[in-house]
């Protein structure tokens, strides 16, 4: 049962891959047909496309043949941004990366705040 159902992120990733492979904007029906494995319902595809549009990954292109979709960024732009986010947002104390921002434990931040708490005498 669970093997046939696609995870939410997986469907979005598959849609992006299909859009990158396609030369021109595609309709939801076309996209559903190009997905690997079981063909999902067009409504499911449209919901996932809407989520991607809100995230800024997909743009809607209105045309004579109905609404079509295109990737907002190229594949390399997308992977670059994803890699950067992984590096910037990971807890770096686990992976040898010494970052300038955002790597401290909340407990330590609280201790530092307490140490600086009483304002200096003017």
């Amino acid at each position, binding site marked *: 049962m669970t093997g046939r159902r696609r995870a939410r992120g997986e469907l979005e990733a598959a849609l992006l891959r299909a859009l990158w492979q396609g030369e021109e904007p595609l309709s939801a029906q076309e996209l559903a047909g190009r997905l690997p494995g079981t063909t999902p319902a067009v409504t499911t595809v449209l919901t996932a496309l809407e989520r991607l549009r809100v995230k800024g990954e997909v743009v809607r292109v209105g045309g004579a043949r109905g609404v079509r979709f295109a990737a907002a960024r190229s594949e390399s732009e997308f992977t670059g941004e994803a890699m950067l986010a992984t590096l910037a947002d990971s807890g770096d104390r686990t992976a040898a990366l010494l970052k300038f*921002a955002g790597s*401290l434990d909340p407990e*330590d931040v609280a201790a*530092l705040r307490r140490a*600086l708490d009483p304002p200096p005498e003017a």
Partner: protein
Amino acid sequence: MDVGGSLLAVGLLLGHAGLMAGLAPVLLTRGRWRFRRPGLALGLWHVALHSGLAAAAASLAVAMALAAVLVEQQAPPPPGSLSPVQGMVLAWVAITVAGVAAVVVSTQSHRIACEEARTRRLLGALVAERGIHRTVADSMVITVVESERALACALPGRLPGGSGARHRVVVSSGLARALTPAELRAVMQHELAHLRLHHPVLVRLARLNAACLPLLPGARELHRVTGLLVELIADDAAARRCGSAPLARALTTIGTREGDESMLLRAERLRRSPVPPPRPRRPLLWSPQRATAAGR
């Protein structure tokens, strides 16, 4: 071999290891001094860590030596001593402890090495994909990558001896645009200080220690405080080279932009107690300024 004396030595060594593991988290995690003197605080942590580990290892060695003597003894044991059977039990206990420790340490270091390799690959891919400018200085490769995110990070090269092992510093173009040249220099000095002062080794060691001794509060604490103390040490080192003011401004700008309170606190700490400005590089006995001043 004096059985009583050896057992006492094992007990004392284990006691020392336990004392270090118990005392360090109590004494070294309170007070404001550790934020003023982060280098001293981290140094004391490592005194406790290394002397504790050395004492534990020595107690095992003494126990094994004692067990060997007991098992080998021919004459019936004098009263108050241990029998060969008791010696055998001691030997097995010591060998089991040493074996378990070896397996745990090697498993955990392998896991950490895999994690590091993944980060290295990710950073390498990012540099290949997005790198727009590259400078090589000493043993470091400094790369600017195109992104609006404010990212600055340092990744150590592989351990010395590896081929082409270079330290990497990566800065995003978004960070570079948000800062003045002086502020950016201070950020770079902060990252270089991490590498120069071997912070990657300290972080790795604290992580390995915590992974091998997950139930020991001292090990968890060391891992946690290492993250904070190396940042403060690198801040001070960078401030000594570039001045506290530009680094504090950079921390404020990036901290506000990324919504990171810890950076604003680090900036506040630098403002409260600025690090002395860089000393003149020239020898103190003779300098052109002094010579001209004396000539007047």
